[in-house]
Structure formats: C-alpha cells, structure tokens
C-alpha cells in the first residue's frame, strides 16, 4: 500500500475527513484560541466566503469581476444603517438581497462587456460607489464614518462559519446543476454556448447576482469586528483583490482551492499586513507571478501533480525492476 494509491482510491473519504476536521477546529477554536485569534479566524472565513463566491461566478464563466468590495461594502453599510433597528439575521438577509439587486443592475449594464473591459468596469465601480458614499457622507449628511455596536467574537465566528458553510454548499450545488454547466460553457466558449440554446446574458446576470448575495451577507458579519467604518474602509479595493489572488493561488478548478486560498490569505492579510506592509505587498505580487507561471491550477493543483509525478516514478522503478528480472531469466 503506497500513499499515491491511497489518494486515488480514497479521494472522497479523504476530502470529507478534511472538512470534518476543519469544522471541528473552527467550532472548538474559541475555547482555547483567545479573543483576537478568534477574530482573525472570522476574517479568514470571510475571505474564504469571498473567494468561493467569486469563483462560483468568475471561475466558471471566465468573467474576472473586481466587484467583491462593492458588495462587501454594501453589506457593511447595510449593517451600519440597520444595526439598531433589526435583528442580526434579518439584516444579513436584507444585505444579501440588496447586493443581489445591485449586482443584477450592474450585470445588466456591464455583462455585455467582454474580457478585460468587464474587469476594468467592475473595478471602476468599486471606486465609484466608494466615492459616491463618501460624497454623500461628507456633503449631504455631514457625517464621518460609522461606529458599530460591539458583539461577542465567538458569536460572530459561528455566524461567519455558518455563512461559509452555506456559501460552500451553494457553490457546490450550483456548480453541479445545469446552471453550473451553462456557466462553464460560457467560460469555455461563449459564442458556442449561445448557439447551443443558452441565454448567456440571462445566465451571466443571474449568477453574478447570486454570487453577490454571499458577499453582501459577509459584509454584515464582518462589520462589528471593524468597530468603525467609513467609505474608504468599507469599499477598500483590498476586498476585491485578495479573494481573487486567494482563488487563483488556491486553484479555481474545485472548491477546496478558493477555501484554502481564502483562509491562507485572510490569515496573511490580518497578521502580516499590519506589521510588514511593504514586504507583504511585494511578497503578494511575487507569489502571484510564481503561481500563475508555474501552477496554473493553483496550490491545490499541486496534490494531483505530485501524485502523478510520484506515481510515475514508482511505476518506473517497478517496471525497471521487472525488466531486470526478465533480463535475468
């Protein structure tokens, strides 16, 4: 029994085991982790949610959206405006719905654009919304930022984790559904997809909006741990770039990729950026270039790659051995 065989034959139980361990780890973490590490874990989960929901749409269709920050920021603002009036779960649902509606609107305008034009437009949008909110706050209502009511970190962690589970399940089932097939065919060849009976505009707008729901809801959950927010914080482009880098780094071909990437970059973001800002950004860029050049299927793609390489080597050794035996007889 060698390790490569174990990976190929027991793939499913292994990944199920991985998820069970992850769930157990997150649920028990507040017991021994401490308050600050718990909030770090919450942030990591938020990036995993952003990376998974981003991959749900962009990974499948090939339309690289830079809009996550717009939807996350929307969530943060919905929380800021409603925190004193409505129960938390209701605010999450409202933020999800508003993000959905916003994405629907944006999708109708922008999803006729292809390739880099779509990407640039979504990026401009994040900046635009941030500036509009900034203008309204400064000139119209003359208010400088928002303070959030403190909430228990353990509760926030559990809510974020619940949202992460829902996001991953949604991404999984959408990916397997006919909607997922339609999205992938758009990513494969949009013109051919249209000619196979797929209403590509409708599918793109709808799935873009669906992915925004989770981003908006995540904004609500992350808001209390920010303590204070303004347009620069809520609509920070970091929220757009990090999930994409995380997804590309982790690998977009499956769900584990963006989860692993999101958790990892969430951790780096929260721990390294504060103390090593310049080096962090430099490292961020270098890692990206290396991954894109050498690991097109991401860090998760390393596993089957190594497995194939190892398996090949083992097979070669065995063959060599057999050949030798044959030679001797």
């Amino acid at each position, binding site marked *: 029994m060698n390790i490569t065989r174990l990976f190929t034959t027991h793939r499913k139980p292994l990944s199920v085991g991985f998820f069970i361990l992850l769930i157990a780890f997150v649920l028990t973490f507040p017991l021994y982790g401490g308050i600050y590490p718990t909030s770090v874990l919450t942030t990591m989960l938020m990036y995993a949610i952003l990376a998974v929901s981003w991959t749900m749409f962009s990974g499948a269709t090939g339309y690289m959206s830079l809009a996550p920050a717009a939807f996350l920021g929307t969530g943060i603002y919905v929380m800021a405006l409603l925190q004193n009036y409505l129960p938390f779960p209701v605010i999450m649902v409202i933020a999800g719905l508003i993000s959905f509606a916003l994405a629907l609107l944006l999708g109708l305008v922008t999803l006729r654009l292809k390739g880099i034009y779509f990407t640039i437009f979504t990026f401009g949008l994040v900046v635009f919304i941030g500036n509009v909110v900034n203008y309204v706050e400064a000139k119209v209502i003359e208010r400088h930022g928002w303070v959030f009511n403190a909430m228990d970190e353990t509760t926030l962690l559990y809510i974020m984790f619940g949202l992460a589970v829902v996001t991953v399940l949604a991404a999984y089932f959408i990916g397997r559904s*006919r909607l997922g*097939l*339609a999205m*992938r*065919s758009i*990513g*494969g*060849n949009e*013109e*051919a*997809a*249209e*000619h*196979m*009976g*797929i*209403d*590509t505009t409708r599918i793109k707008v709808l799935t873009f909006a669906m992915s925004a729901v989770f981003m908006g809801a995540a904004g609500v959950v992350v808001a209390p741990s920010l303590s204070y927010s303004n347009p620069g914080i809520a609509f920070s482009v970091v929220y757009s770039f990090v999930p994409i880098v995380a997804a590309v780094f982790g690998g977009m071909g499956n769900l584990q990729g963006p989860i692993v990437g999101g958790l990892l970059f969430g951790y780096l973001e929260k721990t390294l950026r504060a103390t090593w800002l310049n080096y962090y950004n430099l490292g961020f860029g270098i890692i990206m270039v290396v991954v894109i050049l050498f690991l097109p299927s991401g860090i998760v793609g390393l596993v089957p790659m190594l497995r194939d390489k190892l398996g090949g080597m083992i097979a070669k050794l065995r063959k060599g051995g057999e050949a030798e035996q044959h030679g001797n007889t």
Partner: protein
Amino acid sequence: MRSCGKEAKRSNMGILEGQGVSKFFGGLAAIANVDFHVDQGEIVGLIGPNGAGKTTLFNLISGTFPLSSGEIGFKGRRLNGLKPHQICRMGIARTFQETKVFGNMPVIQNVLVGAFFGMPTHVSGAAATREATQALEFVGLSAMGAAPINDLTLANQKRVEVARALATKPELLLLDELMAGLNAAEVSEAMELVTKIRDKGITIVMVEHVMKAIMGISSRVMVLHHGEKIAEGTCNEISCNRTVIDIYLGEETHAGS
C-alpha cells in the same frame, strides 16, 4: 446567368427560405440581396471562394448578428431579430469553421450542453444524459466521453461539435467546413456521417471547400461570390457552369475528381 433548370425537384416543403438577405459591415456588402430556399430532407452545399460570404450567411441564419435587410424564414416563422439561443431552440443547430468546443469540459459534457439547453422545453437530467450519450455514439465517439476535449484530434473535435449540435435535436443543421483540415480517410468518414444525419431526417446546409465531398453528397449546390449568389443547381449543373469554373473551380476540376 443562372444555371440550368434548378426547379427540377421542388415538390417538398421549403424548410428554410431567405429573401433579399443582405448584410453590410460598414460600407462592405458581405452578403448582398441573396435569395435562397432549402427543402426538407435535402443536403445543400454552399460553396465559393474565401471571403464570398458563406460563413456570414450561416451567421445570419443562426442569429449571430442581425440582417441589414431582407428576411429569413424557418418553417414559415420569421427568424429576423431572434437571438442565437432562440433560433437554436426552434430547431436550427450549427457547427463552426474554427472549432468552438468547450475546452474546459470533458467530451460528454460538451454534448450535454446541447442536450440540456437546445430544446424549447425543460429537459430532465436523465433524458439529457441519454440524448448526449446517443449523439456521441451516433458520431462514433462513445469511447471518448470522459476524455478532456482538447486531447482529441481536430477531426474528432469536429465530430463532437456535430454531436453537440445533434443533441439539440435540430431539424436543420448548418455544417461550416466540417471537412477542412481532415485527411482523405477522415473526409470519407465525415461524408458518411453527413449522409447518416440526413437519413435521420435532418436537413443539412454545408459550407465546404472539399469538392469531392460537396459533389459526392449534396443534392443541390449554391455558389456565392463577393456576397452574391452567382449560381445554383445540381452538382452536374454547377460543375459545368462557366461562371463557377472561371471564378472558383478552375479548368481542371470536375465533379468527383
């Protein structure tokens, strides 16, 4: 100068009709005032020099872009203004000159896309899988269902495109240079496949440069040049047509050679 006696057999119902079909790109007429008709159960060959407007005509029929003027009708319904996915669901499927497969999926999923989305009604997962499997079997690729599409040869990728189109259950199939880039053996296999599709009751219009294929299997040929229809008729009529020989076929080429 139109070719001799094209009215020979028009007893069948016309499935596709075009009247005064034109398409301008800027000031250039890619297709100028072309009339055409295709009867149920025919194989119609569409030939002409490069840039004659053959693929443009396919793009107009399948709705890739709108007509500048004129009208196209399919089974008595106007196609003008419809989107490609609507036209596909009405029963017109196509393949592409440059293969446009879904490179991010295995072979069977490529075909499944057609089976799932190409019908006007909702198709169940089981029915779609059955349809896709049958279509793949029909083109002779059932052994390759799980393979990544990019691992297939050009000839086989083109077959997958045919299977994908067939999975939408079309009544009319537009084949855009199915034989281009194939070797002699692959060409005869492809010809056999086209005939087999026609025998299923599917009407075919094919753009082709391989004269052996056109002359071998089409019941009628239409010749385009500079966006205009310069001749139409049976294979014999076309291969003897003076204008067509001068413009396209050349002196040495005759039917079947």
